[in-house]
């Protein structure tokens, strides 16, 4: 594992329980800044759970208990003094199903900035345009900003959700199987977009699709039954895995 990159997220001996179910077992890793890290593994292996600890979305599931430490830029995000809303502003998230709000395209993007107190019309206009441009959606929707977000196709909706997340100016973007509900062409567009975004954001993506991880990411983490089996440079992990289970998984012997 290269050490030249600075790590933005550090996870230290993390254990997570849903009630009595031990969902994450002693997970430790460092996630580098301005790079794409992919979490792969079979269903129920804990990859989404770990992703959701990074912006504390798991807080809302009753019966969740966490031990260990996660720090982002040196701050322990589970310490009592951390404001969850500010954390989530810094750590944006895109979900499996595109989930635009039942509002116009404009209002979808402006929702986050408005939430955080921006009222000025001109500033909002600028944020909407920049965010849509960053998500490579501006050219397609610039004349229809007042239209309902539901008039967009699934792939466009997902890029809208990415733009919506970018509008609050996060450092980290979490993508929870963000392309699994999309067709191959839309998927490709999002993958290209993610490549663009890694120059400015730290991206952590969960994917069911190993090929996607191989195509897109810089680092890959392989999970099995709540444990990290292997964590390495994507190229190395796919070409020369050091653990037999990783090899079995990526060669399609299970999962």
């Amino acid at each position, binding site marked *: 594992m290269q050490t030249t990159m600075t790590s933005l997220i550090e996870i230290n001996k993390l254990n997570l329980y849903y009630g009595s179910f031990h969902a994450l077992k002693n997970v430790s890793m460092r996630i580098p800044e301005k790079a794409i890290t992919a979490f792969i593994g079979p269903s129920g292996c804990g990859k989404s759970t770990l992703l959701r600890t990074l912006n504390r979305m798991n807080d809302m599931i*009753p019966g969740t208990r966490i031990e260990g430490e996660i720090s982002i830029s040196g701050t322990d995000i589970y310490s009592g003094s951390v404001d969850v809303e500010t*954390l*989530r502003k810094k750590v*944006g*998230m895109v979900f499996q199903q595109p*989930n635009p*709000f*039942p509002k116009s395209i404009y209002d979808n993007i402006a929702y986050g900035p408005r939430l955080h107190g921006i009222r000025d019309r001109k500033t909002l206009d600028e944020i909407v345009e920049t965010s849509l441009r960053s998500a490579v959606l501006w050219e397609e929707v610039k004349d229809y900003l007042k239209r309902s977000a539901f008039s967009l196709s699934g792939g466009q909706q997902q890029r809208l959700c990415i733009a*919506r997340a970018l509008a609050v100016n996060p450092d980290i973007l979490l993508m929870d199987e963000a392309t699994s509900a999309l067709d191959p062409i839309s998927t490709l567009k999002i993958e290209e977009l993610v490549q663009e975004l890694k120059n400015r954001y730290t991206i952590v993506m969960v994917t069911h699709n190993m090929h996607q991880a191989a195509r897109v990411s810089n680092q890959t983490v392989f999970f099995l039954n709540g444990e990290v089996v292997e964590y390495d440079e994507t190229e190395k992990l796919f070409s020369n895995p050091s653990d037999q289970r990783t090899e079995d998984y990526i060669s399609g012997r299970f999962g």
Partner: protein
Amino acid sequence: MRSDAVPTRESMFKNRKTHLMDRIMPVVLFLCATLSILTTIGIVFTLIGETFNFFRQIPFIDFITGTKWSPLIEPKSFGIWPLISGTLLITVIACLVAVPLGLASAIYLSEYAHKRVRGIVKPILEVLAGVPTIVYGYFALSLVTPVIRSLFSDAGVFNALSAGIVVGIMIIPMVCSLSEDAMTAVPRSLRDGAYALGATRFEVALKIVVPAAFSGIVASAVLAFSRAIGETMIVTVAAGSTPKLTGNPLESIQTMTAYIVQVSLGDTPHGSVEYGTIFAVGMTLFVITFLLNILAQYVARRFREEY
């Protein structure tokens, strides 16, 4: 085991019987549905017929423009407005009580309450909806009215405020339950999207859930409004029987429903003009409720947020 795979003759006969049932059942169910429709049609026709009879004796223009309602005592006068104003006064007070409280409890139940709390509170609220309205009437008269009279010395024993508040309390469960259903139906993914942008619970409730559930909330409010307009026992017991064109909630008034009760219970001869008034009043009530429902459907459609 192999014979199971091929349908035998016997099993095919069984199928025929089910087919017969399939043909009979829709007819039976259709008749049941028709019965309720026929009842409604019957009510509307009786209402229309009797109302026409009434307007043959009393000019419609006097009824709809008059501001004095005194059909039983000389000099007789048949202006509907005092009854309408009384009804609206009660209804508005009731809605001012029920919509904010009902909506607030709905937001609490759907966005804040633990599953277990909701499992206990919601059934209790629904039981509250089953309390006989006469009980509410005496609750108004014996508990709420004394409080109001101790606060406002010029309030009457019978007053619109007391009855209005208690009608409001009566319809809270309805507003709450229906709004809560609408809010619970808002998909989890919309909430997650807002939380992930750093919204607080309150912001998610107010800016995502309530707008998305708005058409359901409007529907609940209008249903509550209609229910308040039609409420009879509470107003008969607590609001008095003085038809009066007033906006003062501390005075005794009379609602349309309470008037119908008064005449129905009295010794007004069948077929007389006085007797006919209850149909004209009933018709007015019907028309108002009907228009409100249309308005509600329009509003709900106009503000619907599809998700």
